[in-house]
């Protein structure tokens, strides 16, 4: 006979402090700009909680942070990062450089190593040298600088598409030519929109709205954004890096 020990024991379910709230985020770096995007659906299980819950946040005029995973942790994490950046501003009378924000985020994530923020972070913006940059993180803080990254529910749908369209993986350049290392802004924007419409089509947790942040390097004109309608500028000054946000509808089913 099997022992009754584990049979008789009443099943007690422990409190689970985590949940998943769906959605997907994405960032692509250009030569002198970065696009950071995320959908705006927040869900739990099969229920849509709201059709508009931002996952992408402006930190400074040159840094935008996208958070995806457990929404409560994400919001708290963004709040704490913003607080640290404000303290930095008060201490140094300038905004923190992007690579320093990236290291700050890694330190803050790793500080919670044994009760992690269940959040995937993608930081995008303009580096001190004026180049576009994307930093991606795992929940406990390991990070790297990349040219593009997708994360969240539809990461597995979007990332291989980006490999193909951004890194030109499995594509051969025309004879005597090489692939461009950075794409122009209009191309990047259409790839971002295509990625999200594709993910919306095939993933139930993605949809409702798309929020794209565009960060332009200091002195770069808005070339490539003319055809974009409904652009809203969020920069605090016009002579530095500039931040814009564009919103688009996604399918709601």
């Amino acid at each position, binding site marked *: 006979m099997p022992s009754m020990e584990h049979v008789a024991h009443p099943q007690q379910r422990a*409190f689970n*402090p985590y949940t998943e709230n769906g959605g997907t985020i994405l960032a692509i770096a250009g030569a002198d700009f970065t696009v950071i995007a995320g959908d705006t659906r927040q869900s739990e299980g099969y229920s849509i909680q709201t059709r508009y819950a931002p996952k992408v946040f402006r930190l400074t005029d040159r840094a935008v942070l996208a958070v995806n995973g457990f929404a*409560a942790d994400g919001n708290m994490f963004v709040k704490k990062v913003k607080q640290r950046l404000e303290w930095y501003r008060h201490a140094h009378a300038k905004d923190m450089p992007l690579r320093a924000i990236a290291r700050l985020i890694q330190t803050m994530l790793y500080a919670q190593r044994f009760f992690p923020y269940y959040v995937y972070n993608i930081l995008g913006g303009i580096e001190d040298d004026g180049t576009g940059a994307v930093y991606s993180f795992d929940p406990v803080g390991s990070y790297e600088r990349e040219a593009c990254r997708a994360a969240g529910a539809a990461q597995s749908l979007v990332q291989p598409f980006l490999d193909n369209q951004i890194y030109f993986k499995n594509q051969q350049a025309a004879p005597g030519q090489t692939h461009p290392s950075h794409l122009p802004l209009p191309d990047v924007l259409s790839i971002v929109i295509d990625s999200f419409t594709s993910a919306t089509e095939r993933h139930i947790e993605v949809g409702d709205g798309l929020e794209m942040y565009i960060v332009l390097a200091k002195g770069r004109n808005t070339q490539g954004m003319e055809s974009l309608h409904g652009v809203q500028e969020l920069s605090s000054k016009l002579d530095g890096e500039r931040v814009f946000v564009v919103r688009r509808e996604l399918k709601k089913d």
Partner: protein
Amino acid sequence: MDHFPTNWGRPRNDAFDHYNTYPIPVRPQNNAFADSVQRTQQPIVTGTSVLGLKYKDGIMIASDTLASYGSLARFKDIKRLHQVGDFTAIGASGDMSDFQALQRDLESLIISEEVTEQDGHKLGPKEIHEYLSNVLYGKRCKMDPLWNSVIVGGFKDGERFLAYVDLLGTTYTSSTIATGYGAYIAQPLLRKAVEGKEDVLTEAEARKILEDCLRVLFYRDARSLDKYQIATVNASGPSISDSIKLETSWGFAEGIRGYGAQTQ
């Protein structure tokens, strides 16, 4: 100069070193009840769905008045809606003892705000919601959650506010919100009736929508009751109704075997 004798090499004295301020002594664990302290592992006395919506001049929150003990309808006139300050109403589902603890917490928050009455600031629904989410998120981080889903609604400075927060600290805003079974049964009805019409719906229409949803919930949610309250918050502040009896009709049951009076 080091002013602390323990750092000079004086031997430790068990008689009084425990009462020193520095170095902080390791006090003996003498909490005899440490093993007996229980955290909320599961809700005990529970309230079911709460519904909330935005309408033309404010927001409305509705819930029935039942507090269940498992499948037992234990307390049939429990107030699950609560006024906070001058601009806000909240409604809670989940554990009722945790909710009443929250009520006391919010009450003391409002009282402590009276000290700064003259500063020109008053706690509005946004602040109450932020406070609540910090409390609930803080408790979940201690693995000692307040087992509730709370809807916060309010009206301040000409602005409507309707938001949600739960035991995990998850938050969101939306023009319609439903907790518990309401999320599955009432939310689709609410969305159909409200989305896109937030600025048109009158108070009477909004009340009708909520009553209809509560009625459907009463028909299908076994932990619900046909007695409810509605909180309305508009420019003239929050007002919470007394318990109201829900009008239900069971005429259809006569024709269905198992529902009506038939015995065979």
